[in-house]
C-alpha cells in the first residue's frame, strides 16, 4: 500500500496500518540508532521503541512536509539526546584526541571507527551518506544550523580517514 495512505490510516488510529509502517521503517531507524549509540543494540532498540510510540502519538500532527523517514529520524535524534543525557552522557562527548592515533596493528572497520566520533559527527555522516539526506535535510532533522552540520561532516570524514588509514 502507498505510504501516504498508510500514514493517514495509522493517524486515524488504525493499529494494523501503524504496524506495517513500523515494519517498513524499523531496520533503517534501528540501524541509525545503533550508529548513534556506538553499537549498543539494546539501548538503540529501547530508543527505537520510544521513537515509534512517540510517532504513533504525534502522527496526526505529521503534515507530510519532508519525508516520513526524516520526520522519524528527527524524533529519534531528540529521543537519543534525552536518553543519552539521562543515562549515558559519554555518548554525546567527543573522545579525547589520542583516540584518533590508532594502535599500529589496528585497521578499524567502519563501525568501530564511527564509534570514535562525536554524536553530532556520527549523526551527520550517517544521515548525509548512508541515509542519503541532503545537508539541509540533515540540519532540519538534527535541529542544527547548516554550517554546523557541514563542519560535523567534514571533521568526521577527516577523523575517519585517519582511523581507517591502512597500516595505521
Amino acid at each position, binding site marked *: 500500500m502507498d505510504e501516504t495512505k498508510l500514514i493517514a490510516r495509522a493517524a486515524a488510529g488504525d493499529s494494523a496500518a501503524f504496524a506495517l509502517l513500523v515494519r517498513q521503517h524499523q531496520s533503517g531507524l534501528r540501524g541509525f540508532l545503533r550508529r548513534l549509540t556506538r553499537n549498543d543494540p539494546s539501548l538503540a532498540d529501547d530508543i527505537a521503541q520510544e521513537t515509534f510510540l512517540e510517532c504513533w502519538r504525534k502522527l496526526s500532527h505529521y503534515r507530510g512536509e519532508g519525508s516520513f523517514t526524516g520526520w522519524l529520524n528527527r524524533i529519534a535524534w531528540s529521543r537519543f539526546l534525552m536518553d543519552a543525557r539521562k543515562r549515558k552522557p559519554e555518548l554525546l562527548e567527543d573522545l579525547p584526541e589520542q583516540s584518533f592515533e590508532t594502535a599500529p596493528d589496528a585497521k578499524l572497520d567502519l563501525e568501530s571507527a564511527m564509534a570514535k566520533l562525536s554524536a553530532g559527527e556520527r549523526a551527520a555522516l550517517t544521515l548525509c551518506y548512508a541515509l542519503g539526506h541532503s545537508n539541509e535535510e540533515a540540519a532540519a532533522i538534527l535541529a542544527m544550523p547548516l554550517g554546523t552540520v557541514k563542519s560535523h561532516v567534514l571533521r568526521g*570524514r577527516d577523523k575517519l580517514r585517519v582511523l581507517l588509514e591502512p597500516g595505521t
Partner: protein
Amino acid sequence: MTRDVDALLSQPLPPVADNGFSGAVALRALHEAERTKLLDQLILLLTGAVVLAALPLAHLGTAIETVTVSLGNSLPVGVAFAALVLTTAFVRGVVDRVE
C-alpha cells in the same frame, strides 16, 4: 583515501532483522491507545458525576413542574400551538394536492 571513505560511508546501513520488534511496538501502541481511551471515558464519567452532584436537582424538578403547568394553562401558548398544528396540516394538504 577520501574516495574510499566516501564509498564506505555511502554504503547502506547494515539491515537489522525484525525479530518481533515491529509486533512488540504495535502491541505497545495498541495498549497505549486503549489506555488513553479508557482514561478519556473515566474523565468524562467523573466530570458527569461532579456536574450531576453540583446541580440543584430538587430545585430543577420544582422549576420544571411550575413552568410546564403555567405553559399548559397559558392562553397565548395554546393559541400558538393550535396555529402551529393548523399551519402544518395546511402545508401538508397543499403538498399532497400538488403531488
